[in-house]
């Protein structure tokens, strides 16, 4: 009688779970829509950004030559000496020379003036790609006569036409073409500093090349196909670089361009990943809802002889298939994003991007979608193991609430590990991925704790004097089967992620807009020769403009640190002074006191050297000294245009670079540089645009070598640029917002499931409809409100940390914005809660129970 069971399901069909999954899904597809939406939005953002990044990198590879326009270039603030030129010329068949500098130009036909980048060109540059002009032949033709080609936006802005003239310094050039595109330069680049090309043979006659002018001399080379670019080539490059010349090759240009835009795409990827993480929450909560609704069916199937693993496999198949569908939809949307992104990024990316579908991103997107679905689905699905067949004959026998056991723990750990791996893949930085994963898990635990505390606290402080409606709504926060913890965690996390996006944007805008505030300087005149200083000062005052600063500037180079030159200092392991400190040209000022943007942080500042035999104690910017590995007492030897000046670091200053002031890395005391060749900078504020235009015209006419930076114009251009970048970020942020909304809806549907029976019972006992509306509204008001507060607190904490440690800016939350986010989240929670409960309230209790359970 006590025989060992030998029953086997020998003929059990392997395809049966698949068939069951299909059959069961027919009436459940609507319920899985939220799940599909969660997956597809997250995957869409990720596929779109990844494809865009890869496309961009491929294009940079393909267009590397035309980014530089030559095989290599050598540039510096001093002309390339013939000795070096000849050495480089041995490797090349063609060479071109370019002298570029900032200068004011005047359009005599309209009287308009503007600071532009003048490029005086000689030779056939570019050898790869082209300077695109209208008419096309103008890019070559202008080099033959006293003609210029001018940025098209500049012509438009000053209403100038082909055939008009543009005055550069002392010479007027006929405009023979409008410049549409320059190798390696974005639209934004040319908006900030529009370009005017002139033939180099007329440069001298413009009179703009004066001592102290910020001029860059670039020589472009095209390799001789026969050239050997190994031994001797490397020596020549090394020699040039040791003399401070910058040798730029195609590879370097490619790396530089790639690095710059990789940072942008990394940021966008982080936003996309945020959308995906929210999607994961959506997946977890929508599958939880789904599994919950399947418990009675599973109990019956278990009665009919189905194993727990078979039941789980049916729903796992559904989850995987719907994950696949969501991923495919996501990939399609992602491809559309990818097609659209080059259109909106072309303003600030100097590369023509022809969108090409990047299949690996799609494969990874689909795979990621399925893995997310299965992993996050399993967290709930394993709960089905605990469904007893007994619940088929005893309703309410047990629920599928996820109870902590080893398997759930193992899946939880796998989920965390998966998030870490995905972040690592996305960010290509193991440590940063670990930090981000840690922050994420920490936030979830914190929100979980807040939810628990609310539930616990509400039970103890709920005043019995409250009306029935409020008591009922609030007590739902701690009663059995409450969803307080789940909702506070999900709402809190999505609010935190979304609010952080807004705060960060606000932070960046704050950084820029500070410069334009009232009463701050907005116009900078530079390259003023000493002989012009007094006259220009007088002219400024004649225009009723304040001279807010008048600063002398002396250029110099660093020769030695503590008696060691560039190579010795770098090779000395105790010094380690980086090479750039010796290569750069220093623009230094001298004065007897510190200004408002400077704070002394170390040492003493003595602003006067009265005896020429005294030691000279200079002041360095704190950050610069840190990067240079120098400290108080170190000796620095400068070459001040031929004269050697030995100095000692006397103090370090903290400089607020955001102020529109002339700030200097190196500050000399008075009594040292007064007789050195120098130029001056004058800063003023012009409130009216018509005065600004008249003043600029007068300056350009009388002092053609003086350049004017109109900060209002720069700010306007920057705002445009930031607007375009912000649009891309907001566009990607929309996906996070969309997924956040889906998460919120599924979280609220979760609680609807819990509240339905109770509300039906209340209706049966005679509760009026409006009482039920109020009870539901009260419950969701508290849940949404607390989720929002918790999320906002997290967002403010993270934004402050980022502001302090990354952007070096104190984040001051905009309380109107905070209140707006709080209201939006809370009101949305209440509305979604009420919307999802409408059936329970509108229809008869019997009807509801028949349809819903």
């Amino acid at each position, binding site marked *: *009688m006590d*025989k060992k069971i030998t029953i086997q399901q020998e*003929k059990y069909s392997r395809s*049966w779970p698949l068939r069951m999954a299909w059959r069961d*899904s027919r009436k459940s597809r609507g319920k899985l829509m939220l799940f599909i939406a969660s997956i597809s939005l997250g995957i869409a953002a990720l596929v779109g950004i990844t494809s865009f990044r890869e496309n961009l990198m491929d294009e940079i590879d393909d267009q590397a030559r035309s980014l530089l326009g030559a095989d290599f270039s050598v540039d510096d603030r001093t002309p390339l000496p013939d000795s070096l030129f000849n050495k480089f010329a041995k490797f090349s068949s063609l060479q071109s020379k370019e002298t570029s500098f900032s200068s004011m130009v005047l359009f005599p036909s309209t009287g308009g003036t503007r600071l532009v980048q003048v490029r005086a060109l000689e030779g056939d540059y570019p050898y790869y790609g082209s300077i695109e002009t209208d008419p096309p032949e103008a890019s070559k033709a202008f080099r033959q006569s006293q003609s210029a080609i001018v940025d098209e936006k500049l012509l438009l802005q000053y209403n100038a036409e082909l055939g008009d003239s543009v005055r550069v310094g002392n010479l007027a050039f006929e405009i023979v073409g409008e410049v549409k595109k320059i190798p390696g330069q974005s639209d934004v680049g040319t908006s900030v500093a529009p370009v005017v090309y002139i033939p180099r043979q007329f440069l001298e006659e413009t009179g703009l090349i004066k001592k102290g002018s910020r001029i860059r001399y670039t020589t472009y080379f095209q390799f001789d196909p026969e050239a050997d670019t190994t031994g001797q080539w490397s020596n020549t490059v090394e020699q040039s670089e040791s003399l401070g010349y910058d040798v730029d090759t195609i590879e370097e240009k490619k790396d530089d361009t790639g690095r710059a835009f990789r940072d942008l795409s990394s940021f966008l990827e982080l936003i996309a990943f945020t959308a995906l993480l929210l999607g994961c929450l959506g997946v977890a909560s929508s599958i939880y809802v789904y599994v919950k609704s399947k418990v009675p069916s599973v109990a019956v199937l278990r009665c*009919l*002889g189905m194993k727990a693993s078979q039941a789980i496999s049916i729903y796992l198949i559904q989850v995987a298939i719907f994950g696949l569908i969501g991923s495919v939809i996501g990939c399609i949307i992602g491809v559309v994003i990818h097609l659209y992104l080059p259109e909106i990024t072309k303003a600030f990316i100097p590369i023509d991007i022809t969108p090409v579908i990047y299949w690996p991103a799609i494969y990874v997107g689909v795979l990621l979608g399925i893995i997310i679905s299965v992993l996050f689905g399993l967290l709930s699905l394993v709960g089905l193991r605990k469904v007893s*067949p*007994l619940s088929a004959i005893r309703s309410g026998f047990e629920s599928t609430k996820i109870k902590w056991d080893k398997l759930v723990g193992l899946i939880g750990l796998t989920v965390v590990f998966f998030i870490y791996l995905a972040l690592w893949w996305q960010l290509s930085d193991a440590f940063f991925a670990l930090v981000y994963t840690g922050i994420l898990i920490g936030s979830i635990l914190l929100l979980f704790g807040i939810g628990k505390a609310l539930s616990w606290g509400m039970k103890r402080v709920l005043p019995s004097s409250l009306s029935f409606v409020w008591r009922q709504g609030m007590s739902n926060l701690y009663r059995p089967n409450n969803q307080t913890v789940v909702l506070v965690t999900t709402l809190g996390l999505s609010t935190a992620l979304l609010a952080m996006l807004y705060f960060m944007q606000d932070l960046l805008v704050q950084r820029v807009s500070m410069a334009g505030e009232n009463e701050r300087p907005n116009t900078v005149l530079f390259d003023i020769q000493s002989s012009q200083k007094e006259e220009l000062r007088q002219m400024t005052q004649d225009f009723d403009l304040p001279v807010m600063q008048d600063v002398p500037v002396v250029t110099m180079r660093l020769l030695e640190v503590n008696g060691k030159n560039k190579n010795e200092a770098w090779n000395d392991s105790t010094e380690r002074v980086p090479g750039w400190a010796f290569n750069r040209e220093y623009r230094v000022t001298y004065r007897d006191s510190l200004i408002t943007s400077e704070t002394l942080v170390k040492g003493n500042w003595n602003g006067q050297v009265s005896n020429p035999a005294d030691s000279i104690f200079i002041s360095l910017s704190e950050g610069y000294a840190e990067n240079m590995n120098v400290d108080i007492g170190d000796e620095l030897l400068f070459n001040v245009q031929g004269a050697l000046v030995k100095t000692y670091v006397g103090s370090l200053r903290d400089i607020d670079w955001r102020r529109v002031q002339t700030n200097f890395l190196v500050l000399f005391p008075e009594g040292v540089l007064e007789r050195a060749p120098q130029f001056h900078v004058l800063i003023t504020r012009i409130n009216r645009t018509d005065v600004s235009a008249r003043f600029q015209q007068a300056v350009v006419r009388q002092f053609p070598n003086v350049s004017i930076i109109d900060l209002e114009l720069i700010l306007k251009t920057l705002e445009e640029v930031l607007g375009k970048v912000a649009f891309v970020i907001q566009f990607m942020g929309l996906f996070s917002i969309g997924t956040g909304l889906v998460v919120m809806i599924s979280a609220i549907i979760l609680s609807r499931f819990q509240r339905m029976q109770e509300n039906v019972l209340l209706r049966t006992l005679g509760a009026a409809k409006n009482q039920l509306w109020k009870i539901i509204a009260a419950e969701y008001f508290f849940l949404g409100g607390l989720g929002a507060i918790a999320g906002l607190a997290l967002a403010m904490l993270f934004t402050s940390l980022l502001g302090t440690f990354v952007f070096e800016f104190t984040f001051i939350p905009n309380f109107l914005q905070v209140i707006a986010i709080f209201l939006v989240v809370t009101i949305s929670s209440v509305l979604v809660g009420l919307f999802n409960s409408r059936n329970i309230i509108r229809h008869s209790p019997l009807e509801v129970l028949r349809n819903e359970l």
Partner: protein
Amino acid sequence: MSSILSVEQVSKIYQSGSRTVQVLDEINFDVSEGKTMAIVGPSGSGKTTLLGLCAGLDHVSDGSVTLNNVLLNKLSEDELALVRNKYVGFVFQNFQLIPTLTALENVMVPLELRGIDGAKGISEDLLTRVGLEDRMDHYPTQLSGGEQQRVAIARAFSNDPKILFADEPTGNLDEETGKAVEDLLFEINKEKGTTLVIVTHDIDLANKTDQIIRLKGGKIAN
């Protein structure tokens, strides 16, 4: 006639918080193959618990249950599932059809779980036998209570069970429909020669069976 179900000294104790509740106390009985039996008793007397233990839906706290010569006590949950699939049929008070499957698919489930060929044909025959040949593709919500219970009866017999457990099979139906369902259950049971165990409050229904167990306070009263 050999015994298909043997219950020996069965007790069931539940832990409710810090309180121990003895639902069943030393129950003994045997059911012979092909016979019908009713378990009757007031609410809370332990009828449904006993049915659950007999059908392998739960484990006993003490004693033993042997079904078709298989001792259920030591079986794992998955082994119990196999026993139920192979030997047991169920009819529930609230029908318990899978809402996402059609009537036909509901009947096919036990057969498909066993991998029996021709599950569709067998199920169609059974649905025709219970008078639902034109309702096969309807979902449970599209059927009346009586129709749903007829589908449940067809499903219960679909895997040719050795024993069929019915928990208040007419409890959710009006008198007339209940009577029709009751007749159908007994008719098919007779045709198939299945052992039938019914839990019921309905003394008239209980009187139609070969054997009656009366439970009171977790013990057999007769």
